[in-house]
């Protein structure tokens, strides 16, 4: 008996020869515990060594393997082929980013944005000696913990129509990570200068798809709306600065 298979329609873009991406079809075994990523690895190992894609930890924590699967941004290591019935499954690079090759997209823009929000603990005065930690209660930890869970997988950017239409938009993950530090009891900055901008929180029209696609439940939409309230209060009330 022939083993069951499923067809994967994979976007190929070879800049030396293709003017735009084209779909190429492959038949791969359909096994109950195979993720989309296992299917792609099967193609690369056994059918076509020229297919390029990024992956590493295959446990949903390194953030490398985000792709567009049947029109939805997903981590391919945690998306199972069995979800797609008899198939076929369409696998494309994440929307909203320039495509370097096949399923590999350019995320350098995000890294520049991340740097711009000062994603580190801002302190004033001299650093205390390395003999004791800063105190932080579990409740203070809970105040920002959710936003510290971002794995930089870029699914939220791909789902965000504002970002896709305007690549200058600071975007969900960068703002959530700024809030991760703003809400940290050890931090002394509020990043008002980089967040209170038309291309930053005010660019967000609150579609909410960033939150819907986030594989780590960071809820960037919430982070952005909360900062809108913070920024509005700070603009209106002179004493509400930190």
């Amino acid at each position, binding site marked *: 008996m022939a083993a069951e298979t499923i067809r994967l329609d994979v976007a190929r*873009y070879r*800049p*030396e020869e*293709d003017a*735009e*991406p084209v779909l190429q079809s492959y038949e791969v075994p359909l096994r109950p515990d195979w993720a989309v990523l296992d299917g792609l690895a099967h193609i690369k190992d056994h059918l076509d060594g020229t297919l390029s894609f990024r992956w590493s930890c295959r446990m949903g924590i390194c953030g490398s393997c985000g792709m567009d699967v049947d*029109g939805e941004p997903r981590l391919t290591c945690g998306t199972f082929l069995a979800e797609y019935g008899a198939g076929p499954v369409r696998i494309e690079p994440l*929307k*909203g980013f*320039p*495509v*370097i*090759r096949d399923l590999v997209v*350019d995320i*350098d823009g995000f*890294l*520049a944005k991340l*740097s711009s929000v000062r994603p580190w603990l801002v302190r004033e005065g001299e650093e205390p000696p390395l003999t004791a930690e800063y105190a932080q209660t*579990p*409740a203070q930890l*809970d*105040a920002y913990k959710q936003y510290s869970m971002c794995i930089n997988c870029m699914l939220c950017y791909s789902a965000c*129509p504002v970002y*896709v*239409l305007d690549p200058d938009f600071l975007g969900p993950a960068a703002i959530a990570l700024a809030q991760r530090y703003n809400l940290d009891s050890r931090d002394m900055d509020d990043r008002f200068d980089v967040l209170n901008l038309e291309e930053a929180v005010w660019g967000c*029209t*609150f*579609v*909410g*798809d960033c939150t*819907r696609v986030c594989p780590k439940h960071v*809820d960037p*939409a*919430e982070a952005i*709306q*909360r900062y*809108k*309230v913070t920024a509005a209060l700070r603009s209106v009330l002179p004493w509400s600065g930190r």
Partner: protein
Amino acid sequence: MTTARPPGHEEARPYVRPRDRWWFARRRSLAVFVLRELTSVLVAWTVAYLLLLLGAVADGTTERFAALAARPWMVALNVLALAATAFHAVTFLNLAPKATVVRLDGWRVPAWMIQGGNHTAWLAVSALLAYLVLRSS
């Protein structure tokens, strides 16, 4: 930390997808979003209509306003505006927990409680207004 991309590196041209005019039609969640944004027009109409009413009261031309308001197309428009405003208000109140995170002694008040509180408050204010208006007539 900054990225090093030494000059003189000829890079093969990355593919940039052309802008998609129908982006909102590609996903249900985006279509609902655009629909919600469009209700703002009717919310604006409701405000303009109320201003017209206030103007008529001030000028003493309420009869002419009433005649205008009774026209079938105007009634239809206002029914549509009422539906749109209600939709806008309900979704607005449902989104509120995203902007206001309430913590009581470390315990985070769940979204449904904030939403429920909002709707309850909305109903209470509406009931009070209805009581005041209906009592005088």
